[in-house]
């Protein structure tokens, strides 16, 4: 026998299972970019409050002001799903992770442990309830019959072997989830229920809908036998260590990390895998505030498998981001990926070794801070000084490197961030940069503005000025931020 555990209104239940007080309220889940997010799921109370799928937040608030509206949370759904799996595993090692909102358990032999089939079903349902999930449970002789029964009938359903066709017969044909085209054909034929599909002659049906039609019919009859596909525990490369006493220095931590890394790398190697991301999880023991969690992620540019390098990188990272309290527990997880297979061209210049490059970049980051290391990418906008730092990555050299145009223009040195300055203006032109820097000559104003469609709108009035500084003449680019009404020095000219 197989048991299906199905959570109706799963997306709502994902919230309700963590906040049981919501069970007594109208709850609706929305999805989409605000302000155009729409309801995608709701509970019965919300339905009673006349909320409808597809309503926007504003419409829902107008229709049912008391309703609780939540944005869809994939994380909470994942947690709820994990609970569902836990519930299954509590009864059998053979649990099929069929969908987000339902699982199938191989219930063979459970009757000998837990009583008759309805008692088995009841206990499974109780287990679900204890995890905060309201479920439909159905037991049948094959996984699919159990799934359809759990979807179609509320509460607990037990279908004795041989009674599947009759018991499932009243269910609507859409519950079979046939492909849209097939569903359309069945509708046209006036086939609305499992029983009607079950009654069609087999040969004639296969002449019209092929094997797919026959399979659907077997499903509708509840006689489709298939092997359960038990969920395999995901392949995780995680090592953790609880320390006997908290450590507050990096050196002893490095010793612990080295052990964990070696272990993980050995496991990865045994499966011919490498990693491109390490996640460090530390439980901090603060005498005053109790325990807290400290996490760091280490992204690698290419898949690697070098525990020494990993240790150095983690060490550098922790040096620049030290934990705030002694460490009581360490957990290290590696994302498993296929190792890098790359061969450089014979006649191409040698690129730096990825591992060493990463180490160098990590050292640089430790010195100048993370956001100042990388490649500056110039942005396509009129906004002055537009660039963004991007992660430095070695790319395969192209045949034609762009040739910079020769230009006789003066060199501009940009102040980042721009320097705030007080400017005296006369007849619309700047005449002095305070303190005491008289403008000898000026050119401008140069007007530029942009991003008027967003809240990032900006408007500048720029001038190029020559000012006397001590005994020399200096050339500056200054601008007035028209939205703030303040002056800045943007750059100096050589």
């Amino acid at each position, binding site marked *: 026998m197989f048991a299906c555990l199905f959570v109706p209104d799963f997306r709502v239940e994902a919230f309700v299972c963590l906040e049981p007080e919501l069970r007594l309220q109208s709850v609706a889940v929305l999805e*989409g*970019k*605000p*302000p*155009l997010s729409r309801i995608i799921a709701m509970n019965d109370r919300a339905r009673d409050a006349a909320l409808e799928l597809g*309503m*926007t*937040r*504003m*419409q829902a608030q107008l229709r049912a002001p008391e309703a609780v509206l939540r944005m869809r949370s994939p994380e909470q759904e994942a947690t709820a799903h994990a609970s569902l799996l836990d519930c299954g595993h509590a009864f059998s090692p053979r649990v099929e992770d069929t969908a987000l909102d339902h699982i199938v358990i191989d219930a063979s032999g459970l009757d000998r442990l837990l009583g008759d089939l309805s008692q088995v079903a009841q206990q499974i349902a109780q287990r679900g309830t204890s995890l905060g999930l309201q479920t439909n449970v159905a037991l049948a002789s094959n996984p699919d019959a159990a799934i359809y029964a759990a979807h179609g009938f509320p509460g607990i359903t037990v279908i004795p072997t041989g009674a599947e066709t009759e018991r499932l017969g009243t269910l609507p044909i859409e519950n079979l989830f046939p492909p849209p085209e097939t569903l359309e*054909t069945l509708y*046209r*034929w*006036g*086939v609305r229920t499992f029983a009607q599909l079950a*009654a*069609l*002659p087999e*040969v*004639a049906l*296969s*002449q*019209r*809908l*092929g094997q797919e039609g026959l399979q659907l019919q077997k499903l509708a009859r509840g006689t489709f036998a298939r092997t359960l596909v038990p969920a395999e525990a995901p392949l995780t490369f995680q090592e953790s260590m609880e320390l006997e006493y908290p450590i507050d220095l990096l050196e002893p931590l490095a010793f612990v990390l080295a052990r964990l890394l070696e272990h993980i790398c050995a496991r990865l190697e045994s499966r011919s895998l490498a990693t491109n991301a390490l996640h460090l999880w530390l439980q901090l023991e603060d005498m005053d505030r109790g325990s807290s969690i400290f996490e760091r992620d280490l992204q690698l540019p290419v898949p690697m498998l070098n525990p020494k390098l990993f240790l150095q990188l983690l060490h550098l990272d922790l040096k620049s981001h030290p934990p705030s309290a002694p460490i009581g527990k360490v957990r290290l997880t590696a994302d498993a990926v296929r190792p890098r297979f790359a061969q450089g061209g014979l006649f191409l210049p040698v690129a730096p070794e990825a591992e060493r490059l990463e180490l160098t970049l990590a050292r640089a980051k430790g010195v100048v801070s993370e956001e100042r290391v990388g490649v500056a990418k110039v*942005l*396509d*906008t*009129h906004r002055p000084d537009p660039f963004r730092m991007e992660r430095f990555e070695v790319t395969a050299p192209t045949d034609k490197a762009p040739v910079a145009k020769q230009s006789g223009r003066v060199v501009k040195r940009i102040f980042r961030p721009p320097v705030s300055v007080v400017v005296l203006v006369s007849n619309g032109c700047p005449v002095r940069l305070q303190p005491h820097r008289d403008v000898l000559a000026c*050119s*401008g*104003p*140069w*007007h*530029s*503005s*942009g991003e*008027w*469609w*967003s*809240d990032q709108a900006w408007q500048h009035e720029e001038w190029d000025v020559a000012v006397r500084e001590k005994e020399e003449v200096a050339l500056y680019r200054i601008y007035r931020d028209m939205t703030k009404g303040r002056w800045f020095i943007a750059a100096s000219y050589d």
Partner: protein
Amino acid sequence: MTYVELHARSAFSFLEGASLPEEMAAACAAIDMPAMALIDCNGVYGAPRFHLAAEKTKIRSHFGADVLCETEFGPVRVPLLVTNQVGYQNLCRLISRMKLRVPRKSEGITTYDELAQFATGLVCLTGEDQGPLAVALANGGFTAAHRTLEQLAFTFGRNNLFVELQRHHRREQEARNQAAVSLARSLGLPLLATNGVRYVQPAARQVLDVFTCLRNHRTLATAGRLLSRNNECCLKSGAEMARLFADLPEAIANTTELSARLEFKLTELGYQFPPYPVPDGDDMNSFLRKRTADGEIARYSQRDAAFRERAHKQIARELALIEKLGLAGYFLIVWDIVRFCRDNGILVQGRGSAANSAVCYSLGITAVDPVGMELLFERFLSEERGEWPDIDLDLPSGEQRERAIQYVYERYGKLGAAMTANVITYRGRSAAREVGKVLGFDAETLNRLSPLVNSWEYKDESDTMERHFNDAGCDTSHPRIRKFLQLCMALQDLPRHLGQHSGGLVVCQGRLDSVVPLEPASMPDRVVVQWDKEDCADMKIVKVDLLGLGMMAVLEDTISVIHDQHRENVDLAQLPADDPSVYAVLQKADTIGMFQIESRAQMSCLPRLRPVRFYDLVVQVAIIRPGPIVGQMVNPFLERRLGREDITYPHPSLEPVLKRTLGVPLFQEQLLRVAMIAANFSGGEAEELRRAMGFKRSEKRMREIEVKLRRGMQENGISPEAQEQIIQSITSFALYGFPESHAASFALLAYASAWLKCHYLGAFTASLLNNQPMGFYHPATIVKDAQRHGLRVRPIDVLRSDWKCTLEPDNGQFALRIGMRYARGMRQEAAEALVAARAMRPFASIDELARRVSELRKTELVTLGEIGALNALGGASVHRRDALWQVERAVHGTGPLLREIPDEHDASPLSRMTAEERLVADFSGTGMTVGPHPMRYHREQMNRMGISPANQLPHLPNGKLVRAAGSVIVRQRPGTAKGFVFLSLEDETGIANAIIHPDLYQKNRVTLVSERFLIVEGVLQNLDNVISVKAHRILPLHITQAETTSHDFH
């Protein structure tokens, strides 16, 4: 210092300018700029509108174009200004040549050689960012720029080349200016300051940025430096420009100097209408006289001598004026087109004011006798007006009209005839979609937002776009939504691209390409001018409108069906006049499908007007206009007609003019005659009066004319009260009045359609169904109406139906067989292949049908099965589901193993469709049902609910509380009805009308707009046999899932 803007680009540069020419002219006048030059991209699209607006605002208008030209550094935009007529013609020919050698929608490019060829009369500027100077400087430096200027100076002459300077507060532009000034000095070329205007107000930069994104298929977030750097391309005053160019005063001074040199006016196009080729020994006048005389005999010989004399005199008078104005050629050309149509069996009829002309009637151009109807010739043509007459020809829409257009092309050649353009502008939804795209909204959001742009005709104060957004659950306080709304509004009515007008043809003697630039049209070998038909009329270019009229096609088809099936010949010109059976039907407002008199408003007027003769129909056609309701003319007329009000005249002298319309002026001709009689206006002056009062009315002109009217009436001794009454009726009415001649032309078609419907219902209904979409009602309503009138309508059947609806014998009568064109998704070629295969040998089974007609797709077979069109193929007991069962086997492509295995049972295991399922299938598969009306199945339930059938309502007393119900076939919210909504509900017995008060509408908006079936509860109004229910309560009625449709006039 005076400054003239000589480089302004309007929204007619299509996505490269953001203000309309009218706005530019008005802004120009507002800042006291004496002149402005409109230089649009690769065309003079906005020139007529700019010219007219400039005349109105009393500024001088100059013209030119930014022409794309290929150079050694790539394409550049060369701004050219027109100095004289030769220059204008050269510019038009240059653009035409460039446009016509590339396919439609490609931009086309010219070369320096061509520029040299057409340089006479043109002044060249060195352009802006994409101009020849800027591009040469950027790519080849100073030397290349020098070379470019030398070349341009050689091409246009040193006096006709100006080095253009613009100052938009941009560094790179100023650097270029420095180079340009130095080059100009070294070459001795004059400098010219311009501001490269692309919009009037700085705020419109946002619209230009949106356009830039649309042009480059980007969003605002990804367009980067394609967008404007700032908003300096607005129109600036002379003082501002002088301040900007304080260091180069000559650049400003040169603008006025150059402006003075630009002498060309758009009134000097050099357009000439082509002469009509006549036989030796004749000139056009004599030839026209002969043709008119021939027609006069045919048209009037049956009439009495006095009438003939009157007609002859009128014709002579018209011919004299035509000769005097040199218009004989025009009449002959139109006559020639009409003759071609007649010779080729194409139904044709002139409409509009041409029906005032006895010459047109004699030549067969129009079908209304203006002498018999005492129509006013001056409405059509007058000496004072000095403009070309306007003759519109109605032709059957579709292929026949196409043949007539082809004939004109063949006759006048590619450069002698062209279609007028149709400027497509941004309207509600299109603006919303484009703005949404540019703001980066995803497809789903776009689909959600764009339908919210409301387009009901009537808009009350609460009917704002903001309100619709709120209703749909969009938060209008959100910045992105607000920006979206704001941009949608800003884009409204701006030109989007140039389309082709459906029927306007321009003909010209010699080269039309030197009058207005030509472009390729979407059809091969066709060209279209850059101006729309209003612009052509404003520029006094003669056009002939060959308009497609669905009803003409219906009439033509009906006559052909009558000939084929009834073996009778019907000649529309010989229909029995004033047939009482026709008028009996009209008086009952039983007019569904009839031309011009089928609308809800017409139907509510017919029982009160009770037409008994043709002239009543002319009045009927004219009376339902938005204006007379506003002008309080309909009610007095109907009251007098019903004998409830005395017939009086503002002055006894006006009795002859107003007698026919019971003292109430209803037609434009009457208005003209009133002015002529009461105030001694000449015919031409009266027509001027009508125009002054028309749509483009000007307060000043109206006041001038009113003074003149009063003076004339004073001279004729008309009392001040009567004067007031006359002026009141003229001013309130002139805006909306119909020309009597036009009404008469349409009334002829209305009568013909009514006569054919009364006498040949089957043929008429078949033709009406074959020419959909047209008219006021959906095919489902037309079919139900025909059935109620006794026509048997049979469903689509693959053994009998053609592509079109046909008639088939039925017990000595004819039944209508619905054609396969009504099977949703059916393609004409598949249907025709089926008919051809059937003609060889009928099909014995669905299998055979699928095998023999390989053109049929599975979806088509399935639809045919669903709507019962295959039932006849399987024997007597086959039902739709049996057919669908067989279709699935026939199309599934069973493998060889199973192919030979017969079905286990002869019949399918599927159950028969219920009546409801059949209804749903009928409506989803054909949009109609030939079986009982959905309401018929629920009549008992309706009776229990106290719902009266539509045909019972006329028998109930006025004021009784009633309930009516049915499928909503029409929803209307006319602009003139102050927010009232009119519903038409159809049941199996007929149509019930309901009136919804604005308050009730607001309360039940969703129900009223979205429900297919409604119950309306309210007070029955039965006034003069016009029946309607004044609703108190609206309820949805859920009786079927069938997707019935309504015609909503939003």
